């Protein structure tokens, strides 16, 4: 990576008015060089107003699309704006933006890394605790995707991820909207399109607002849906090279094509 790539941080936010302001302020304080885009996923609270007040640009979806829809909006914006790197950081404050430079630095290099995942189980600081069933689901997903990516991935459901120009262009066209599609399936898409994926250990913080629901029934449901999402992602057909998404400026599309190997 050249020094000083143009970085866009995309924050998908759905009813996060209590935390989005602090998250933006923290990213601003730790990474003054990046641009911020909050994608308000059809919130019914003051998320958009709070984010604007905190100094971020806000794209407001007319109704709730889920993280996948919010992120594809962000990736499209990154393509249109000609950004080199797109970063996903959740609005609830569980991703520590101090790791951002480290994650961005892992892009490119001799391995031509195109997607970096901030992984919670990789041994940095306090362990991230989840129930047994959910842990099993995560392990199954991690094993399968590690084999596909030919590298050790321990936390494929992490929403803390950094994509380079090629990967974000791919995501702008093919970012799934279904459950777990935003993490698991998108990783499969990136791998199958030939992007190198790697992870960097990060320490996650507790959510600043809201609680993760972890009843045994929900955990079992999560496992089942994870298996379905993974199986579908594995058998689905995806185009080898991404076509330029609609709405992309001809110039950006041309630059992208020239970068293709």
């Amino acid at each position, binding site marked *: 990576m050249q020094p000083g790539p143009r970085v866009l941080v995309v924050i998908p936010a759905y009813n996060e008015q209590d935390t989005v302001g602090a998250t933006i302020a923290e990213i601003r304080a730790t990474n003054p060089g990046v*641009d911020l*885009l909050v*994608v308000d996923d059809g919130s019914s609270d003051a998320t958009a107003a709070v984010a*604007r*007040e905190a*100094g971020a*640009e*806000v*794209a*407001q*979806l*007319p*109704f709730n*699309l889920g993280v996948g*829809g919010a992120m*594809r*909006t962000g990736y*499209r*914006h990154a393509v*249109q*704006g000609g950004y080199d790197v797109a970063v996903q950081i959740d609005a609830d404050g569980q991703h520590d933006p101090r790791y951002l430079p480290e994650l961005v630095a892992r892009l490119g290099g001799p391995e031509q890394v195109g997607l970096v995942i901030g992984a919670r189980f990789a041994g940095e600081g306090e362990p991230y605790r989840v129930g047994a069933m959910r842990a099993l689901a995560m392990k199954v997903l991690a094993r399968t995707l590690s084999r596909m990516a030919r590298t050790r991935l321990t936390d494929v459901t992490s929403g803390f991820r950094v994509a380079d120009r090629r990967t974000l262009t791919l995501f702008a066209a093919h970012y799934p*909207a279904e459950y777990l599609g935003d993490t698991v399936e998108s990783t499969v898409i990136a791998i199958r399109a030939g992007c190198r994926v790697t992870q960097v250990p990060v320490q996650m913080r507790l959510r600043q607002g809201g609680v993760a629901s972890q009843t045994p029934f929900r955990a079992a449901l999560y496992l089942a849906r994870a298996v379905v999402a993974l199986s579908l992602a594995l058998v689905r057909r995806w185009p080898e090279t991404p076509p330029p998404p*609609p*709405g992309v400026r001809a110039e950006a599309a041309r630059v992208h094509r020239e970068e293709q190997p």
Partner: protein
Amino acid sequence: MSSTVILGIAGSATVLVALFELMRRHRLREKYAVLWFFVALGVLLLAVFPGLLTGAADLVGVEVPVNLLFFLASLVLLVLTLQHSHELGRLEEKTRTLAEEVALLRLDLQRRERRDRPDGPAEHTPRDGS
């Protein structure tokens, strides 16, 4: 026997009249109308010529002809429902794309409005001007 003929004719006639009316009011796309037209035509044919059904049942070895009718009818409905699920999925994807485009267009519009009003509220000005 004649009562089944009357029922069959009445049923298919209802479908055909409803189709015509929906088409006339621009409420039905042609592709769906064609589909239902053939379904209604099939019902009409079977009602007027019940021999077709018994002949077909003999041919494929179904002992009770009406079972063949039920089997085929449920198969047709199943395929139609599947087709509708497929269409629904495509529509959802299109709606999603439109929603995303709307969000990005709104963002672009806000930026332009801010740029055109340099005396606007300063705290809303983005750091970069691109």
